[in-house]
């Protein structure tokens, strides 16, 4: 089933959803948002794409197996927890780069919590994609 409406709207909506997902991921440490919600939004965009072009075509464009998203996400989250141990801080304690300013974003505050959130983001994407692609292929 290839509906023109879905294909066109996917083309329009996907970039917006993805941008929003990344914004949610970035602001997640102190404001509402975070890796989990960001990841779900991001997969919403991908699911729209799957509905538009079909799971087989979609998998050709993937540069990494969804299952590998899962494990790499877990590794990122784990390393965000373990890194502080090497500089004598507690497990999962936050490490921060010095703050700097960028034109649009304003003050940028990057540190290990963002890496942790990115890990969660990847895990969510990997999990939902695995499930959705399996269902789509079974249907």
């Amino acid at each position, binding site marked *: 089933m290839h509906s023109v409406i879905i294909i066109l709207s996917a083309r329009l909506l996907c970039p917006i959803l993805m941008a929003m997902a990344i914004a949610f991921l970035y602001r997640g440490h102190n404001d509402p948002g975070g890796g989990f919600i960001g990841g779900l939004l991001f997969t919403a965009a991908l699911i729209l794409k799957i509905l538009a072009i079909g799971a087989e075509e979609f998998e050709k464009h993937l540069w990494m197996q969804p299952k590998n998203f899962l*494990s790499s996400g877990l590794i990122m989250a784990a390393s965000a927890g373990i890194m502080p141990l090497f500089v004598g801080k507690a*497990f999962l304690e936050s490490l921060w780069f010095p703050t700097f300013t960028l034109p649009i974003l304003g003050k940028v505050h990057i540190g290990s919590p963002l890496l942790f959130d990115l890990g969660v983001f990847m895990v969510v994407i990997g999990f939902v994609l695995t499930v959705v692609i399996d269902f789509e292929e079974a249907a």
Partner: protein
Amino acid sequence: MSPLLLPLLVPFIAALCCTLFSKSLKVQRSISLIAAVFHLAASFNLLQNVRSEGIQVYLNGGWAANIGIALVADLFSSIMLVITGLISLVVLIYSLKEMSDKLQSRAYFPLFNFLMMGVNGSFVTGDIFNLYVWFEVMLLSSFILLAMGKKPDQLEGAIKYVTINLFSSILFLSGAAIIYAKTGSLNMADIAMRIAESSDEKLLNSTAILFLSSFGIKSALFPMFLWLPASYHTPPVSISSLFAGLLTKVGIYAMIRTFTLIFPLNNGLLQEFFYVIAILTMVVGVLCAASQFEIRKILSVHIVSQIGYMILGLALFTPLGIAGAIFYLLHNIIVKTNLFLFSGVILRKKGSCDLKKIGGLYKVNPGFATLFALSAFALAGVPPLSGFWAKFVVLKAAADAHEYLLLGSGLAVGVVTLFSMTKIWAEAFWKKQPEEYPGVGEDTGNQPWQIMLPIVFLTICTFALGIWGELIFNICVEAAEQLLNPTEYINAVMGEAK
């Protein structure tokens, strides 16, 4: 790095590495074996530290204890960590040969390590909500392990297991929510402190019962044990033995922890309630077991009746009773795992575990039969094996507390246990192979060392626990005294907060 973190991080990192090398079974096997050895060493190290320096506390993320999540190890937790390390190593070695390569390649090793991380996490956490999270880590991995192989009866067992365990999680979460709403804290030491000051009967009893039902489901107490015989005999033997040895015992651990620290059992009503549950669990469990004819089913239902003894020890709430419960826990983990490992060998040799279809094992392999007899009689409580001392201590505590009904039912249950074990012995080992059944399994010859080494090792442990039991029992007594004086625990955790 704090020794408290290692039992969590080692299985976690091992699980991650295993997912990275999902193509090569060889690499996954060696990673898991190395991790299991490290895990055991780290737990021993922690036990040493706790014995020499007292209760260990670690604050995650550098937050104060009542704000962040604290990891706490007292003697009881570290004893449990050591035994977990031991069992995980032994079962891992056994599973290398017992499980087919096809099953092993279905993410067995990552899940095994995640399961170990969940079990260890439940033992070291000092935070009630975090305990829930570790339960979930453990359950999620166990769901998949239980359904591994996708046979119809496995799926049936797994569905029962999943449903009842999710229900128990809801109860636990509700209890934690009520406690949080009333005391404003999730840290167990902090909660214990605040509850000791409060006299709110409704709060105490409602949450205590919610926790009791939740942990009761997880550890298969009397009215809520039917999921266990329905599911434990279905997965591959290595997985059943891991579950039989460890998973229900995590429920018992949680029970002993909450009912010594947060709701000490020395108020009348709750204690009587525990007595009744303990008796019913022991008696109903052992009677159900006596009516079974499949070795693994008999053993699974026996888990229930053994759990009754541990609850009995806890319910008495004397140092001897709780020390007995801990010693019983150790003995039961070793013996129960070992008996399941035996059933795996019988399954390999005879192709079935149904007592009506097998026989003549003594003639084929007297050495193996003797090993089995040692473990079976240890479970039944024949001196001088470990089960005798475990039962003796718990029943002595009951006699000291003048609870003769408990004492009597404990003794009676011991006799019926002996009957069940003799039944397995007579049917599987002494009786001739029934003529209408072939009794031929996939591997009738000598078993590989990966299968026999764990069995021999655990039997030696059972024997050693019986003969040099005093050494270990002394540690159990120390642990029980620590559990009965929660001020030490509270001071260790809350002292870090300042």
